[in-house]
């Protein structure tokens, strides 16, 4: 399957993440890079501007900017030309999908279809054939897995933002090793420590962020929360939010509830859970239970 990877305002994080895909070598045998900014490709970028044939999947990386010229041509026009030809378009990373970090730094910047959660409509003709893979960066298994499924013609159920449900129907909270602490509302006050929930004080967005970070571990070993830092909600349209290391609260009540949980139900449960003092959670897990 032939891939064309076009980067606009990008840090190459998504490409670097893909290089860490453990099965990259075998996986890429099924694909041809017509052009990729970092990988050996069939064509040079100047040829892409001149016009190449046979694009099956267009991969859009980085934040788009009105009038941006990468070499000779206006990038968005180049994009539109190949988008019309491609069977499918994949936006990799939050920048290409929702605007992301680079959209914070200038006017006229957005993702392919979205400015944060708002559809801007400039590339609406291509919406139906677009798959959104947000993340900062996108998890390599998510990108490689989605491309493989597209190659095999497997059904790929999508959510309302066109994210594949296989990877984004879950929240980062799923599989978090700190769930016991979440249940009993115990925060962890030391960054980098391996225990305690970071939802209450330390800004963790795992309970309302769509993603598989705690199901498919980064480099097979870790996730942010497992390493001791909060989830920053990098797959969501409003990434990056402010105060990433501190939970926004209204008189002690988290300003955002876990995904789909009604506030009244959450507060009732939290009130009950907080009433109990669970001794096991009051000390490091590695400490002997007998002290």
């Amino acid at each position, binding site marked *: 399957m032939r891939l064309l990877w076009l980067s606009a305002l990008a840090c190459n994080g998504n490409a670097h993440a893909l290089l860490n895909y453990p099965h990259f070598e075998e996986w890429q045998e099924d694909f041809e890079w017509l052009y990729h900014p970092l990988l050996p490709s069939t064509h040079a970028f100047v040829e892409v501007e001149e016009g190449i044939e046979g694009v099956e999947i267009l991969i859009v990386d980085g934040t788009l900017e009105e009038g941006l010229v990468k070499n000779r041509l206006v990038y968005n026009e180049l994009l539109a030309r190949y988008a019309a030809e491609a069977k499918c378009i994949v936006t990799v990373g939050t920048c290409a999908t929702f605007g992301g970090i680079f959209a914070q730094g200038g006017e006229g910047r957005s993702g392919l279809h979205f400015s944060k959660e708002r559809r801007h409509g400039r590339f609406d003709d291509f919406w139906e054939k677009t798959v959104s893979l947000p993340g900062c960066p996108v998890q390599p298994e998510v990108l490689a897995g989605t491309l493989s499924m597209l190659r095999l013609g497997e059904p790929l159920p999508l959510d309302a933002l066109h994210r594949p449900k296989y990877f984004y129907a879950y929240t980062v909270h799923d599989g978090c090793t700190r769930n016991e602490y979440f249940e009993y509302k115990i925060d962890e006050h030391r960054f980098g420590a391996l225990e305690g929930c970071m939802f209450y004080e330390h800004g963790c967005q795992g309970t309302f962020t769509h993603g598989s970070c705690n199901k498919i571990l980064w480099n097979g070993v870790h996730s942010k929360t497992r390493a001791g830092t909060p989830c920053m909600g990098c797959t969501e349209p409003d990434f990056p939010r402010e105060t990433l290391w501190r939970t926004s*609260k*209204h*008189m*002690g*009540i988290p*300003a955002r509830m876990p995904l789909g949980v009604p*506030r*009244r139900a959450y*507060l*009732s449960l939290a*009130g*009950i859970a*907080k*009433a*109990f003092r669970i001794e096991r959670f009051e000390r490091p897990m590695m400490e002997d239970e007998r002290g």
Partner: protein
Amino acid sequence: MIKEQHRAEKKAKRRGEIVRTALKLFAEKGFYATTIPEMARDLKMSVGNLYNYFSSKEILAQEIIREISAYLGARIREVNEAELSVREKIRRIVTIYFETARDEPEMIDFFLRVYLSNREVFHEGCEGMICVNEFVTEIMIFFDDGVASGALKNQDFFSAFGLFMGYLGGMVFLNGENILPRALEEYVDDISENIYNALKVS
């Protein structure tokens, strides 16, 4: 089937009567001075039968506080769900509290004189704020909405909760001691305004 249903209804009714009677006695005489035989006598039922409904005086007291919390919680929830300014919501909550003190004085008396005074009765089964959860949850929602709308100052929950509820509890207590020169409801305007001024964004 109908017979069973009838029996369950009868039992629920009887349970309600026990709670009301116990509430009245607890509020009047305090937790320790009230006895199960006394309750049974007032209810015209045997002591043994009363124990079929509640296995101890402590459990009965815990059930009472849960019911009071649910009663107040449901009323404050109506305020939370109404399209009102924060200022008006405060007024409504103050009104609800004082109306309850007037119409259901045992409820507030029980809260002040038993629940807050005899904490040992509530240690097991009512840890933390479990038994007043419905009431506290609605106050939390009121604060959360108030801060989110920009009307209330964002501060520690208990600083605001203590100011609001401590004030109301204190006024009801003074009223119960017949110290206030005016009827409780005549204080609604001033007290609501004071609470609003203390909690609003400065």
